[in-house]
């Protein structure tokens, strides 16, 4: 690999000269433009924040009380509400995860370009996009308006969100699953259902199980906010606690949520190890 003569770099030209790391963005104007733009944005955005510092200062005291509340959480004064809300949250998450999985499988099959015909593909991708773009809480508000208060609205919200999440990841999985293996099954003259059953399912199953438990975890965390808009779960109790500045009760609820999430993560680790 010899460079053309006129381009050859000579040691004598370099010794005595400084060295600088070649910049990440080669074009100077673009680099400086980005740096400058970023700084200007930061200043403008921070300026538009409009913080009421006296209010913040007063709030620090309350913040400290809240931190203290964590050392002394109150599980007892609202034990009945907490218990009921927690159970409702868990129920909603479990039911929504099950329904979400069940519905996400056909949607995922439809959203995988290598399996589904174009019209089906577009419809299923549309469902996925809708479900991912609409925040759970907005869906919950609309569903509460339609179905009335209660866990049914929350359950449907979480199911809908689970479909988008699971179907997108599953569809991507199916799209880049091992082609030859799936084709080998097809070559035996299997029907479409058999093909899915023997060629696709075994490859996607372990990941589906892993994802489902992860989604259960997310659903549980999300279920904690649905109560804010009347869609059931622990959120309502939590909201009341904050409204009344009952930080020790709020701390108790938050601690419970953290413990349950930790437990779910632990379980999902075990199950994932067990599936593989």
């Amino acid at each position, binding site marked *: 690999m010899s460079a053309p003569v006129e381009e050859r770099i000579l040691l004598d030209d370099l010794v005595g000269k400084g060295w600088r790391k070649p910049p990440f963005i080669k074009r100077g104007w673009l680099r400086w433009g980005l740096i400058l733009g970023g700084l200007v*944005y*930061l200043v403008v*955005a*921070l300026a*538009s*924040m*409009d*913080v*009421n510092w006296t*209010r*913040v200062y007063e*709030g*620090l005291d*309350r*913040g400290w009380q*809240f931190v203290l509340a964590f050392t002394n959480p109150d599980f007892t004064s609202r034990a009945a509400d907490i218990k009921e809300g927690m*159970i*409702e949250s868990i*129920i*909603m998450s*479990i*039911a929504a995860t*099950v329904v979400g999985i069940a519905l996400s499988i056909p949607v995922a099959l439809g959203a995988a370009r290598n399996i589904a015909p174009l019209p089906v593909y577009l419809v299923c991708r549309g469902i996925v*996009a809708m479900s991912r*773009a*609409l*925040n759970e*809480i*907005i869906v919950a*508000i*609309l569903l509460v*308006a*339609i*179905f*009335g208060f*209660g*866990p*049914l609205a929350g*359950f449907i919200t979480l199911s809908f969100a689970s479909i988008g999440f699971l179907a997108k990841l599953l569809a991507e999985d199916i799209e880049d699953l091992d082609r030859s293996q799936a084709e080998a099954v097809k070559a035996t003259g299997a029907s479409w259902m058999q093909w899915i059953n023997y060629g696709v399912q075994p490859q996607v199953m372990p990941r589906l199980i892993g994802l489902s438990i992860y989604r259960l975890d997310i659903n549980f*965390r*999300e279920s*904690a*906010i649905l109560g*804010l*808009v009347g869609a*059931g779960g622990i*959120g309502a109790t*939590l*909201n009341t606690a*904050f*409204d009344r*500045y009952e930080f020790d009760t*709020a701390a108790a609820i*938050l601690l419970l*949520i*953290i413990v349950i*999430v*930790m437990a779910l*993560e632990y379980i999902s680790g075990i199950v994932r190890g067990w599936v593989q």
Partner: protein
Amino acid sequence: MPQVLTGDGTKIWMLRDRKAQFTRWAAWMVGAIIFLWCWKQISDATTWFFVWDAPRIAGDIGGRAMPPRWEYIDKLWKPLWDTLNIATLGTFFALIMAVPVAFLAAKNTTPSALFIRPVALFIIVASRSINSLIWALLLVAILGPGIFAGMVAIAIRSVGFCAKLLYEAIEEIDLKQVEAITATGASRWQVMAYGIVPQILPAFAGIAVFRWDINIRESTVLGLVGAGGIGLQLKGSLDTLAWPQVSLIILVIFGTVIVSEWVSARVRGAII
């Protein structure tokens, strides 16, 4: 491979032996019972009268929400700008906080696996377990309503997420490169700057963009609890049953989310 011996000693292949098959069935049964029980609880807590009425109500709301009140968009630019700031600044501060937490949490960089690592891991779990809307609720109670509370909520919620992904990246680095830098006589901080930072920088950039995208979604609804942004307008319109405005706001949120997803995909493509 499970096999069954028949009477005359020949082996017959079966997918699973009887015990495993029974366990499997039992697991399915238990799962089904749990689900049915959950469903019964939900159903008991539901006023089915309203549900049967739902199609009519949905049609009614839909009819009132269409067409969206387009003029209202003039009032949405400022909240949209606030939403962008909440997400961007929140991500920015979250990243600043996530870096030290990640280094304290990664097995290969933590100063003490016995005392400091569990604390760092707890910070991560606590931050991740609690939804940004709840953080916002809490911060509105503490700091008062406004976009500042929203930004802090986003930042706190994102710390755990970013730190978790980052510390996983740190744990996966190539230790040989770190050893080589150590062998030159570099100090602890130099080993970090030369051996570790270059290796995790791409992961860091990816995490930042990924979280920014998520934060745009989340900051669109923080206003529902008073933490600023376009959610505030949504709440106002819902409270006054101004359905044409609601439908416009939802459309705007939808558009914002799609744009942010597109931007983050482009940026990620440019970085990697």
